[in-house]
């Protein structure tokens, strides 16, 4: 079969980094082609060039044997190339039909469009109500909006950028069914991911990128996940390990925690119960937007709750603010590195002071002790292998992985009684992620209770003793992590969110 799209020698350089260096591959009609690589390997830049969002510095693309140089996404869409974005390109305050109309060249009148949305969504087993506000939809449903927006334009090539990172295992199955159906109809699919098992289950061919270069092309079904990982990372990764210790006393006891979200599109926490013992790691899974941010806010003290809803070593702390809780040993590292966990334009030393001032005694009579603060920041940089020219540099200048190591290290070094982390390895390269997980396990083995909120199930299974899942603001009862099957986890996460395949209709 002749190739639908061929890419030859594509190169794109940004100041200081070559995002893509002489990348070539081809994709045939009906083929599911994987682009595999770590964060920062250049996958996103590559597909942005194919979709016309970024112009290549050098190289050629051919679509159905004619030169293809999309100057803007509109031109790409006109040529039959559609894309489902990693961070959804949706508008919360608009309804489903309006969102879909915005992504189309010549949308029909709204009423007609609503009917077509219903038709297409049922034909592909993706039920969707065109009149609902997108802000009220679950992550899986929002992705459907994007997919249907693409399907309505009858694409020849569908680009999917990390589509499963926000889905429950059951939702992933539904998505794969849809993609297989599309491929069988002759649509080529370019599937970007770093999840190896998914690629092995779905894709016919894989192009593996590392640091902007193609390092291998293979049939993923003939390789093991370990082999693919090695090609992707370039070295062998050792999974984190820990000495198992008998759990100690209950340190943190959360009971009947209910809280309304400060954000109008947020999730209300409903009667959350859990206990964590000293030396234990509690993993909290769940699809994004099911109350993770709210739970972190309630635990950190950014949102106040009933005094007895959160008890730290027997004392009521629900009414206390973040600093009072820090003094008692309850520390948090939120998800958003730039802007929440760290102040982007302040130096590492200043960022170290921001959370460490109380427990590390970095201020005296209202004046900062700069020497001690610099010493503390240097200790973090050394202990956690943060790559930076010096602690005087702004947090913004660090790469995601290095800043994340700094943010986690800053809390770990304060010897917390309880440490809460949200998405500790989101957008971090594999070796930094492994280092962070190891640090969390080391911390637990010294007797700290660790709560890890994450959407990465593999990560949670790797480090957790107990596992619980958030679903629409409710927390499932924690269960021992060892021996949980993927089906059980999926059900704890709320199954397919009532999004069963519509074939039954």
């Amino acid at each position, binding site marked *: 079969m002749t190739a639908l799209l061929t890419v030859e020698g594509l190169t794109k350089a940004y100041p200081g980094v070559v995002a893509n260096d002489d990348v070539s591959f081809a994709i045939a009609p009906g083929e599911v082609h994987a682009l595999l690589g770590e964060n920062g390997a250049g996958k996103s830049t590559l597909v942005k060039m194919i979709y*016309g*969002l970024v112009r290549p510095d050098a190289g050629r693309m051919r679509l159905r044997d004619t030169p293809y140089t999309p100057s*803007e*996404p*509109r031109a790409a*869409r006109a040529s039959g190339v559609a894309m489902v*974005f990693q961070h*959804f*390109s*949706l*508008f*919360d*305050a*608009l309804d489903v039909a*309006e969102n879909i*109309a*915005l*992504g189309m060249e010549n*949308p029909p009148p709204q009423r007609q469009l609503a009917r077509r949305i219903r038709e297409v969504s049922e034909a592909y087993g993706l039920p969707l109500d065109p009149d609902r506000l997108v802000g009220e939809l679950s992550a899986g449903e929002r992705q459907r909006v994007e997919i249907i927006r693409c399907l309505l334009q009858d694409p020849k090539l569908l680009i999917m950028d990390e589509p499963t990172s926000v889905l429950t295992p059951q939702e992933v199955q539904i998505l794969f069914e849809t993609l297989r159906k599309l491929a069988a109809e002759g649509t080529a699919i370019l599937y970007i991911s770093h999840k190896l098992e998914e690629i092995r289950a779905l894709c016919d061919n894989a192009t593996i990128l590392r640091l902007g270069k193609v390092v291998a092309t293979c049939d993923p079904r003939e390789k093991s996940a370990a082999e693919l990982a090695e090609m992707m990372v370039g070295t062998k990764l050792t999974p984190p390990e820990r000495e198992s210790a008998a759990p100690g006393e209950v340190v943190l006891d959360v009971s009947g925690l209910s809280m309304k979200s400060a954000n*109008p599109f947020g999730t209300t926490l409903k009667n959350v119960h859990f206990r964590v013992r000293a030396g234990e790691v509690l993993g909290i899974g769940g699809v994004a937007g099911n109350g993770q941010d709210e739970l972190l806010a309630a635990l950190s003290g950014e949102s106040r709750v009933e005094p007895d809803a959160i008890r730290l070593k027997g004392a009521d702390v629900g009414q206390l603010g973040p600093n009072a809780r820090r003094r008692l040993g309850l520390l948090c590292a939120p998800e958003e590195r730039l802007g929440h966990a760290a102040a982007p334009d302040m130096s590492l030393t200043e960022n170290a002071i921001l959370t460490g001032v109380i427990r590390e005694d970095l201020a005296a009579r209202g004046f900062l002790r700069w020497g001690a603060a610099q010493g503390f920041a240097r200790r973090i940089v050394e202990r956690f292998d943060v790559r930076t020219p010096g602690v005087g540099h702004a947090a913004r200048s660090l790469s995601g992985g290095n800043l994340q190591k700094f943010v986690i290290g800053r809390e770990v070094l304060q010897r917390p009684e309880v440490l809460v982390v949200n998405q500790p390895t989101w957008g971090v390269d594999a070796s930094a992620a492994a280092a962070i997980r190891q640090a969390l396990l080391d911390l637990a083995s010294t007797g700290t209770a660790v709560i890890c909120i994450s959407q990465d199930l593999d990560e949670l299974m790797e480090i957790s003793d107990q596992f619980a899942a958030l679903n629409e603001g409710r927390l499932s009862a924690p269960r021992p992590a060892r021996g949980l099957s993927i089906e059980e986890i999926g059900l704890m996460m709320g199954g397919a969110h009532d999004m069963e395949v519509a074939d039954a209709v």
Partner: protein
Amino acid sequence: MDLSAINPLVLVASLMVAATPILLAAIGELVVEKAGVLNLGVEGMMITGAICGFATAVETGSPLLGFLAAFAGGAALSLVFGVLTQVFLSNQVATGLALTLFGLGLSSLMGQGYTGIKPPPTARIEIPVLADLPVVGRILFQHDWVVYASLLLVAGVWAFLRYTRAGLVLRAVGESHDAAHALGYKVVRIRILAILFGGACAGLGGAYISLVRVPQWTDGMTSGAGWIALAIVVFASWKAPRVLLGAYLFGGVAVLQLNLQAAGIAIPVEYLSMAPYLITILVLVIMSADRSRAALNAPASLGRSFHASS
């Protein structure tokens, strides 16, 4: 004190005249904010429009040309804001405040030599038949054409935002400029067009003050109407029909204040002059008390700079 001296018919009729400048400026600012831009320079654009319109009308003898000049003058000043904030990515709040101060200074420079002159009168349109209706005819159908034009403009903006594709794109840009950019919409171009429209409307509103409402030229004669227009957009929770309601409400308070003074109410004049502003603050506090609802209606990208780098 003699409340019977206040004629309700005249009160309502003059309320519409008093409200028209803030209505025009507010409906323009509504479009700007729906596109995700916070332009605090409304006051400066209004006063610039006021002098452009006044000077042109006096020189040419045609109020219509005056209004056109105000339209152009407001738009020209807003273009400065648009280029600074959208192209050079300057801070919108600081630039908007600077625009107000600049507009006040510029207008006072341009207005030298125009103090104490009367502008040519703007024609009233008595809508046939309707104008002869008892009571209602006097209140609603005997105004100058700008009043009717402002009402048509509100209806037009409402329909544009609600029913047209261009309106949908504009709302989308204000909701999430990153997503709109990813879909291939020209965020900067759309925002500059919205800013121009907002500036032109503010200019018209200013000219209405200097050509019809007062009608003469004095320095700083808009006296805070631009700020009230900004407040009304929030008060209206970014909905066009409520802008109309808000503008007439505040216009009503302003007129009532004058009438109460005329009726000899024994309250110091200063308190009465403060009333519209106090009520503005009060209404804003009440509106934003229910935080989640107000936040739901606000364009999510309001006031955020956009740069197509990522």
